[in-house]
Every structure is written in C-alpha cells, then in structure tokens.
C-alpha cells in the first residue's frame, strides 16, 4: 500500500489508533488456525465513523480491509491474505447498556464474552453462548462466526441472541438493523444475515443482545463408558427421555488418554467414552433431572458416574475436558482442527469412521465436542512436515465427505474462513453457492472486505 494512502487513513483516525512498525503488524498476521501475510496497517477504531471512513477509502483505492476481534478464530477468518488494513476491535470494548427491564444488553464488538457474562450475572441475568474460548474471544468475533458452546444444546447459538446490530457496509454506509424487541418481521432479516458472515458482509460496530434470567441452580455429571457406542447411545437416550441438559460434552478414547497423560485426574484405564453433562433450572428441578440421567447412563452400562452441585467439585469434573485443548499438543506439534456436525442418531457411525480414518491415513485423530448437538471437534495431530500435512489434508477431505454422507455439515460453529473454503462446494450446491456469491457482491461490489474468505 502506498504511503499516501496510509497517511490518509491516519489523517482520518489519528496517530494514536494505528500500528505501523513491522514487528507490531506481524502480531496481526495470524489467528488460532493459521498464518497469513503481514498487513500494511493495523487500526484500532473507536467508532463506526472511523470504520466508515476507512471503508470509503478502501473503495476508492481498492485495498483489503480485514475485521478482527481477538484472533482466536479456528478457520483463518481474520488473517490478511494480500496485505491491507486490519481493523482490531479491542478498544471498542464497552458494555454500553444492561437493560434489566427489557432483558437486553447493548455492547461494542470488542467486549470479551466472559466480561459480558460476568456483568450480566451481577443483575441475575444470563448470556448463554459460551464458546470454549469465552475468556478470550470477542462478542464481535462470536457474532461474525455464530459461535456455539457447551450451553448450545439447551440454549442455542449466538444467532439466537442477536436482536440487532449496527454495522458498516463495505461501501461505508452505517446501518442500524434489527430490533430491541422480542420480535420483528419488518423486511428481510439483515441483522441475522450479518451473524455468521465472517466479516465479509459488513463490519459490526454495535450489537443488541437478548439476555435471559440466570438459572437458579446447576448440577454436573461425569459418566465414563467402556465402549464408545454406550456413550453415544446414552446421549440419544437422554434426549429421547425428554430431559434437556444444558450441556452434553463428549471425549473419545484418544482424547481421554491424551488429557489424562498431560494432567492426570485418576480416571480408570481403557475408557472408550466420557460424557460431561450439566443440567440447570430452579433448585427443585435439579435432582429429578439428575436421577433420570443417572438411570439412563447406568442402563447404558456406565462404569462410573459422579454427580455434584458444588461449583468447585464441578470444576474438577471438567478438568479432563478443559485440559484437553493444550494437552493435544503433547501428541504432536501441529493441530488440524475441524468441527463437523451430524444428526444426533449418526454419532456412533461418525466416531467409528473417524477411528478407521486415523488408521487408514496413519495419523492420530482425537475427537471431542458438543455431543448433544452432534457437533464434533475432530483434531488431527501431526508433525510439521510436508508429508504429514499431505496425509492430514487427505484425511480432512474424507472426514468432510463422511460427515456430509451422514447428512451433516462441514462446520457447526467455527465457520469457513480460509481453511474450509476449498471444501465448501462439497456441501453446498452450485445454486446455493451462486446465491451466496451474489449476496457478497451486492454488499461489497469491489470485494474489499475480508476478501478470499468463505469463497475461493
């Protein structure tokens, strides 16, 4: 990018909001998935007007603009692919309003998920979407990816909480869309079109979120199974028994062994499947739900079942699951993480297929995730060699093919970004892809906003 353009941008936003040195810019070239190229400029906007000014210039001089939250994305959504300006929202991090009368929060995009949860809890309110990255990821990034989390089973995903957004269109106009009300069917649902659009349709500068009353009580259940089928059957049986836990998390054999090695919690050896289940609601409703679940997991031959209502004890039960993200790297240094979803009844088939693929391609595959949603995080752990990467790539392609064959999808919550873009055509028909591209084009005729993402 020409210095003249960079100076013009600085002229709009002010010197104190940009980073220009190569070392500083380097920090915004990658996300939790992969590396991109170093951006020409990093800007920390403090208002929609800042963003609008930059986007107008971008259309004049045709440089890429890449929105970025905290860079915890797992599909390369926030990385620059051909220079340009990265907009980092860490300074637009105010919770503007917690409206306790209408159960609404109004936030800037840079607010960290955890901070919003804490603030809402002060008023006895609850913001359910809780990606595992909740202590680090931004609400803007969550909205752009339509993040899910353990709570999604009962409470739904980010989309279900977005009532409205302020967004700057790629051409620079500031748009206020959506409602502050529980309903609204005025025209097309533009607010939700922004949700999950991965920063390719507009830059989100303010978000109106729905809150709900904080559940009074909660219990955590850890159930261990010899065989993975038993765990999978237990999941189906729980759902069929008409209990809706807030969470059912699953770990396969390889994941259990891995986390137990890195951070032992004394689990018995040779466990084929682990379920972490949480139920919530008013105090009186907890134990009846727990009893039902306990009966079911026992009927499915659980070899161990621990229950607690004490938050500290619950933390201990979560240990294996929490330690896992880091523990994975003890297997091998490079992680290729995918997040496929299948209809719940196909879970056992998927798990077996994954085991078989690990053998076939001779790569360790560790799976865990939100079993209640049928959403699995499939982690292929490899050494950093070209040969291993090629093997992993083949495995990924087959995993996607299998997920789609089972009626599933490529991505439950991490999005498409750059890493899944080559595979999108496996799932979406040419007609759907054409429609998506037409939408992109009408929002962003010059293709300046986060180019190279979703579509190749």
């Amino acid at each position, binding site marked *: 990018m020409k210095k003249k353009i960079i100076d013009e941008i600085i002229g709009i936003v002010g010197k104190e909001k940009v980073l220009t040195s190569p070392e500083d810019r380097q920090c915004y070239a990658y996300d939790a998935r992969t590396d991109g190229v170093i951006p020409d400029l990093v800007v920390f906007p403090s208002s929609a007007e800042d963003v609008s000014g930059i986007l107008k210039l971008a259309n004049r001089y045709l440089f890429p603009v890449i929105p970025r939250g905290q860079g915890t994305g797992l599909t390369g959504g926030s990385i620059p692919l051909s220079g340009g300006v990265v907009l980092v929202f860490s300074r637009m991090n105010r919770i503007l309003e917690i409206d306790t009368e209408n159960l609404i929060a109004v936030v800037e995009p840079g607010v960290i998920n955890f901070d919003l949860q804490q603030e809402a809890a002060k008023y006895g309110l609850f913001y359910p979407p809780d990606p595992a990255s909740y202590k680090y990821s931004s609400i803007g990034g969550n909205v752009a990816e339509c993040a899910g989390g353990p709570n999604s089973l009962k409470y739904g995903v980010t989309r279900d909480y977005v009532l409205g957004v302020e967004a700057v269109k790629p051409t620079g106009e500031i748009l206020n869309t959506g409602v502050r009300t529980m309903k609204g069917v*005025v025209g097309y649902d533009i607010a939700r079109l922004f949700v999950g659009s991965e920063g390719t349709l507009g830059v989100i500068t303010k978000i109106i979120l729905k809150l709900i009353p904080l559940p009074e009580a909660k219990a955590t259940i850890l159930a261990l199974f010899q065989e993975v089928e038993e765990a999978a059957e237990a999941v189906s049986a729980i759902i069929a028994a008409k209990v809706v836990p807030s969470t059912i998390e699953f770990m396969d054999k390889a994941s259990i062994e891995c986390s137990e090695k890195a951070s032992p919690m004394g689990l018995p050896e040779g466990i084929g499947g682990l379920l972490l289940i949480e139920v919530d609601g008013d105090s009186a409703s907890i134990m009846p739900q727990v009893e039902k679940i306990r009966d079911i997991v026992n009927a499915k031959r659980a070899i161990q079942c621990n229950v607690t209502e004490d938050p500290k004890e619950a933390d201990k039960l979560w240990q294996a699951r929490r330690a896992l993200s880091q523990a994975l790297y003890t297997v091998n240094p490079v992680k290729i993480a995918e997040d496929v979803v299948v209809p719940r009844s196909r879970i056992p088939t998927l798990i077996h297929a994954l085991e078989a693929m690990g053998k076939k391609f001779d790569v360790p595959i560790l799976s865990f995730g939100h079993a209640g949603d049928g959403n699995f995080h499939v982690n292929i752990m490899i050494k950093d060699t070209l040969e291993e990467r090629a093997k992993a790539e083949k495995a990924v392609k087959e995993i996607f093919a299998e997920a789609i064959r089972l009626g599933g999808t490529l991505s*439950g919550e991490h999005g498409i970004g750059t890493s899944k873009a080559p595979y999108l055509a496996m799932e979406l028909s040419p007609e759907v892809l054409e429609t998506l591209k037409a939408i992109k084009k009408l929002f962003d005729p010059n293709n300046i906003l986060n180019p190279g993402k979703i579509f190749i």
Partner: protein
Amino acid sequence: MMRLGEFLGELKTFLKEDQIILDREGMAHFSYDATERQFMPQVVVLPNNTEEVSKIMRCAWKYEVPVTPQGGRTGLSGGGLPVKGGTVLSLLRFKRIIEIDEKNMIAVVEPGVISKDLQEALKAHNLFFPPDPSSTVESTIGGNVAENAGYTRAVKYGVTRDYVRGLEAVLPDGEIIHPGGKNAKNVAGYDLVSLLTGSEGTLAVITKIIFKLLPRPAIRRTIIVYLNNLPRAADIVLRVFQAGIVPCAIELLDNVTINAVADYINTPLRRDAEALVLIEVDGHLEKTVNAEAREIIPLCESVHGVVEVKLALDEEEANRFWTIRREALPALKALGKDHFEADVVVPHYELPFLVKFIGELEHGDAIKIATFGHAGDGNLHVTILYRRRNFTELDEAYRLLETVYRRTIEMGGSLTGEHGVGITVKDYLPLQIEETEMALMKRIKTAFDPKGILNPGKIFVD
C-alpha cells in the same frame, strides 16, 4: 412485458387440467385473504411437487409473468394477494408430512400442511413443535415460515424461525436450492435459511421445510387475571419477568375485545373488566410448574387494579380460557366493521406506556380501538374499527394508525412483530428502516429476482 398466452400454453404441456384454474368463480377463491382485500389473479396453478414448481417458475421467468405464492390465505398483511395480476401459485397440494424423525427430533414437512395437522401428528409421538399461530386450523406451515409467524407461546419458545433448520426452495429462475439441513448447528456460508424465513414469498418459493422439535412439556398451569385498569395489566408482564420466571405465554385483551368475545361465543366473562390477562407456565415436572404458578398468583394479586385471579382447575378450564384468546380476532371481525390492525411490538418496559397512550387517543365516537395480543413479547394487535364505507372515519382511522406507528418507533419498537409487511405496512416502513438498509433489502431482492416476477408489489413501495 408479460406474455400470458404463451405462459398458459406452456403450462398446459406439463400440468393436468385440474391444476390450472382459469374460471372466475374458481379464481375468486384465491383472490382474498384475512386482510379482506381482493385482487383477482389471471390464472391459479396448483403444483403437486417441486419439479412442477421449478417448471412453473422457469416459464414465468421466460414469459415475465408475476407469481404470487400462497398458502392458507390467513395472512394479515396481504402477502398472498396477486396485486400485480399474473398467477397465484398455491401450495395447498403440498400436503405431506414427509418424516417425523424421533431420534434426531426433526420433522420434514411440505409447505401446504395445515398448522393444526402437524400439531396433531406430533402429539402421537409425544413431540412438540411450539410455533402454532392462532390461525392454526387454516394457516399453512409454508405461510408460517414465509411470515416468520409468532404465537402465544413465543415468550418462552421463540418464533417460527427458531425452529427452521433447513429448506428446499425454488428461486425465481426455477433453480432448486437446499440450504441448511437436519443439523443442530451449521455455519457453512451465509445463513440463507434465516434470510428466506420471513421473506414473505418474495425471494423464493418454499417447497420443503426441516424443523427442529422439542419434547412435549407434560404439565401446564393457566391463570386468568381480570383488572379494572389496562396499563396495570402490562405491569404484570414486567413483574413476572422481574421475579425471574419465564412463562410460556402472557396474553392481554382489553375491554372492547372482551366484550366482542362475550358477544361472539358463549362463555363466562367479566364484561366490566378493563383488561383480561392470561398467563401460562409449562414444563416437565409438576413440582416446578406448580411452584411457578404459586409464585405468579400472589404477585398478580399484589398489582394495583387486579380484581380477580384464578387458576384453571383442570385441562378443560384451561382450554376454555384459551378459547377466549383464540376467538379475539374472529369476534372483532364479527362486529361487522372495517378495520386496520397495527401489529406493533415494543420493548417490555414500554408496554404500559404504549397501552396508556392508545387508551388516551382521541377519536370520533363511532370509531373503536380494540387492543389485544402477545403482551409477554411486547407485541400488541391494535385494531382500529370504523364503519364500512364511511370515508370520514376511514381518514381518521388512517390518522390513528399512523399515530400508533409513530409512537411505537419513538419507543424503540417495530411496526410488525409477526404479521409481516406485505401491502399493508409497506408505506410506513421508512418510519422504521433507514434508507441505506432499505436500499440494501431492495438489492437483495434484485439479486434473487432480477426480473421482479416473484410476489411483486410486496414489502417495497414501487
């Protein structure tokens, strides 16, 4: 230029005689909806399957014939009316419930299935599909998705959109798309499912729907509350939420509506009450549901202006309470007046103020304003009744409607909560939607339908 003759000629090559209606009496049946406005189509087609819809669209595209998708014609914003002539494409023959998948708690249905028929079918499986508008005996599932319909239990269970996981749809040029699927989550590409839901048949014809289902709640408790003060009724909504309870429904009827219902059906009602509030809580455990009901009763009793609080003794009485609510609109229609209905929605906290504002509106004696609706969502149906063909009153009704709309927007509300824009709200949209957003919506419309043949004349002012 529309080439109707050639269009009809080509239709006859793949549709049977009974699938094409051209006689006036036959077509008249498809020419009006619950807005009570009438527009005659030039032809009505009744396809049996997706391929036929695709072929019809391809012909319409080729010969530039307007196509208006239509379901049960219970729409309250005129979305299903062929305002630009051309053909009505009725989905009434898409009647199959294709699959009820208990394992994944999913239903796959065709758009012409009547809301109530799906409800009945699911009962047998002990499964629950919450969206069930008051028009349940006539509205179609496709219409509900196209309007993103609400219903009394939306307070707890969300609106139709929250249950749509996947669609099959035919684009204006005849291409068939399948966005979404059976999965609980899906972020592969833009969210076309949400975009098509609520798009009022202007972007694509929906030919199949994949819904998420829930376990059927086993227990419900229904409470009826009478008040001698209308704004206080809205206070009840706030109090209940503040107590941390999320009931499945909180419905409100004002005095005019109560009396209309009392005239219309034979059921005990307090005609002198200024407001009637219905509250329902539900769940899977008797203990929890009872505890919530027991908490709500004294809470209502402590609200100023409450004259009676009553818990339904049994299922039969609960059903009787609900009949009062369900018959509200039919009862008002039976008054034999013309009416405008504003389907406004405001943030909860504003609700008492909106109700008060409406109560204080000045108008001629012969005009009546009936207010009822989904108070728990902040969604009211403000019904302005005036004498048929009385043009002075018509003008006044227009003025009142606009006043209500303007106040709603000032309160941070929305002009329609569930009935859609169609033809009745489109002139008022600029009150709520900024020019840039409106332009964007128009461009979305153009991207899907560059020739403007699918449901023209709706949502956007020409």
